[in-house]
């Protein structure tokens, strides 16, 4: 059984439209799964549902999320929080807003270890220093004492990566972790995440809209459209020739930076119509 198993997860806005439509996906230990789709396809919502941070206006209609075989819904709220805190970590999208501006960096890395997992302060401190070193931060002891505004975006993302790996989580959810960064820094951060994942043998769910990134680090991927998984395949097969017309169009729309004459190709209207019809069909099947 995979470490993370999402089964038929359907979400909707309270008394409103569906956001996810019977999404199923799984991530094995050591596996990197890409979750791709356009803006608004519901990529981040899957991560939020797993982490238990869905906005209040969104409700779970049906479906199961299993962590290491345990159905999260069977746990008490308190136990669920603890399990997620201990086993899952998030690498957020925007490093500039993901660190608390009024607190020093050090405690923001160690707080999970000390408060949730019950480590001693000294152990947590040593662990944080070790990890900051692992993510190539020079002079970790000084950085631990710094406030976020004293550090660059790339540094902050490294700190957040270190923080995510600190408790040796089984699963990491990376929500577009390079989108807010400088292009030159993106590559380093991507490589860092990949290396850390390989070294710690973590399951990684990588949310992105960048197929180029997927080709570099993911073994498998799920393509999402309007909250529905359009295609679930492994990366090599996908880039050799995607099965679904929408996936093909999506791949075709990726700009090639090597060719200056290449213009952007939009997803053709008939492909969108076809996939919309598929979604409508699905909704009809559910009687809505």
């Amino acid at each position: 059984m995979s470490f993370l198993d999402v089964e038929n997860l359907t979400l909707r806005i309270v008394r409103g439209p569906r956001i996810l439509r019977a999404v199923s996906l799984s991530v094995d230990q050591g596996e990197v799964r890409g979750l791709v789709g356009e803006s608004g396809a519901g990529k981040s919502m899957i991560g939020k549902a797993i982490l238990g941070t869905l906005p209040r206006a969104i409700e779970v209609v049906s479906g199961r999320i299993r962590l290491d075989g345990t159905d999260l819904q069977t746990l008490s709220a308190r136990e669920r929080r603890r399990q997620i805190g201990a086993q899952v970590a998030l690498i957020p999208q925007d490093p500039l807003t993901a660190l608390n501006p009024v607190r020093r960096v050090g405690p923001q890395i160690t707080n999970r270890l000390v408060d949730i997992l019950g480590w001693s302060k000294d152990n947590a401190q040593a662990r944080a220093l070790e990890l900051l070193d692992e993510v190539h931060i020079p002079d970790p002891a000084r950085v631990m004492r710094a406030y976020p505004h004293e550090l660059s975006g790339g540094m902050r993302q490294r700190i957040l990566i270190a923080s995510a790996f600190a408790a040796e989580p089984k699963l990491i959810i990376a929500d577009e972790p390079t989108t807010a960064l400088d292009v030159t820094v993106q590559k380093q951060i991507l490589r860092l995440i990949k290396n850390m994942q390989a070294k710690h043998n973590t399951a990684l769910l990588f949310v992105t809209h960048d197929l180029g990134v997927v080709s570099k680090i993911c073994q498998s991927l799920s393509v999402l459209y309007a909250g529905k998984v359009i295609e679930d395949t492994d990366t090599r097969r996908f880039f050799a020739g995607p099965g679904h017309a929408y996936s093909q169009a999506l791949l075709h729309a990726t700009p090639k930076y090597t060719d200056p004459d290449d213009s952007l190709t939009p997803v053709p209207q008939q492909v969108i119509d076809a996939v919309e019809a598929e979604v409508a069909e699905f909704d009809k099947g559910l009687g809505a």
Partner: protein
Amino acid sequence: MLLMRSILARLVATCVTLFGAAVIVFFVIRVVPGNPIAMMLPPGATEDDIARLQALYGLDKSIFEQFVIWLGGVVQGDFGTSISLRQPVLDLVLGRLPATLELSIMALVIAVIIGGAMALTGTLRRETRTEAAIDVTGGMALSVPDFLWGLVLILLFGVLWPVFHISGRVSPSLDFDFATQFYLFESVLRLRFDVWADLVSHMFMPALALAIPLAAIIAQLLKQSLKETMHLDYVTLARTKGYPEASVITREALPNAVLPTLTLIGVQFTFLIGGTVIIERLFSYEGLGNMAIDAVINRDLPLIQGIVILFALIFTVVNLVVDMTYAALNPRLRHA
């Protein structure tokens, strides 16, 4: 160096503010009708008597001359002599100041506790009936002025269910001999808890009346900024780490959300001190505000001037304290 310069700039600004306040109050109270001499003499006093008294208090000179004489005294620490009480203004004012400070600070503490609790509860139970109830309560607290709250409290806790004293600062029957006028503070230091309890029993209602509108303002603003902060990424991240909602609010959101509220509390606190004038009158509390009303009724010009200058000084000190606290709580300002 930079610090020295900003302190110096602050001192200069304070002096200008105080001078401005002095000019305004000095001229305004001499332009409005009514004069202290008329209040002092019995009906039928001769022109001669009036002239003699006016000369005694220097009121026969031009307003501008009077101002220069008075300002010269103030610079040397002499605020003149109260006309109605015949004592040095400085002694009178400093004698009453501790009572008002203790009342205002107690009101502030009550307001912060009530307002903070309302804001935190409202954030924890946001988008529920509890939050709606807090909003309605806050709206009511805010739309009724403090002196009306004072009357409501007197009715509730002084008449219907008499648990608190409704007038004065301390029971005259109590026997104590304190070195300062900071009775509340000193009673704790001297372990005179009987005196302390009596003082609190007298102060509680006026302080609460002053605190209710301020608590409502704090609750509204703090809840608003807490709710905005709750959407930020670092708050979400803390949630994924396994913290329960209540500690996410107090540990992550509150230290940031409190900053705009702090500025507001500073401004509102000065209004609260202004509010003590009426509240002290209502509860016959022997503070500065009560004295200010007597001074105005008696057209006691030097005393009015002294009180106004002191109020202005308190306002600038409060603002200074707020700015310093703000810098201490916000690391982004500390290093700038």
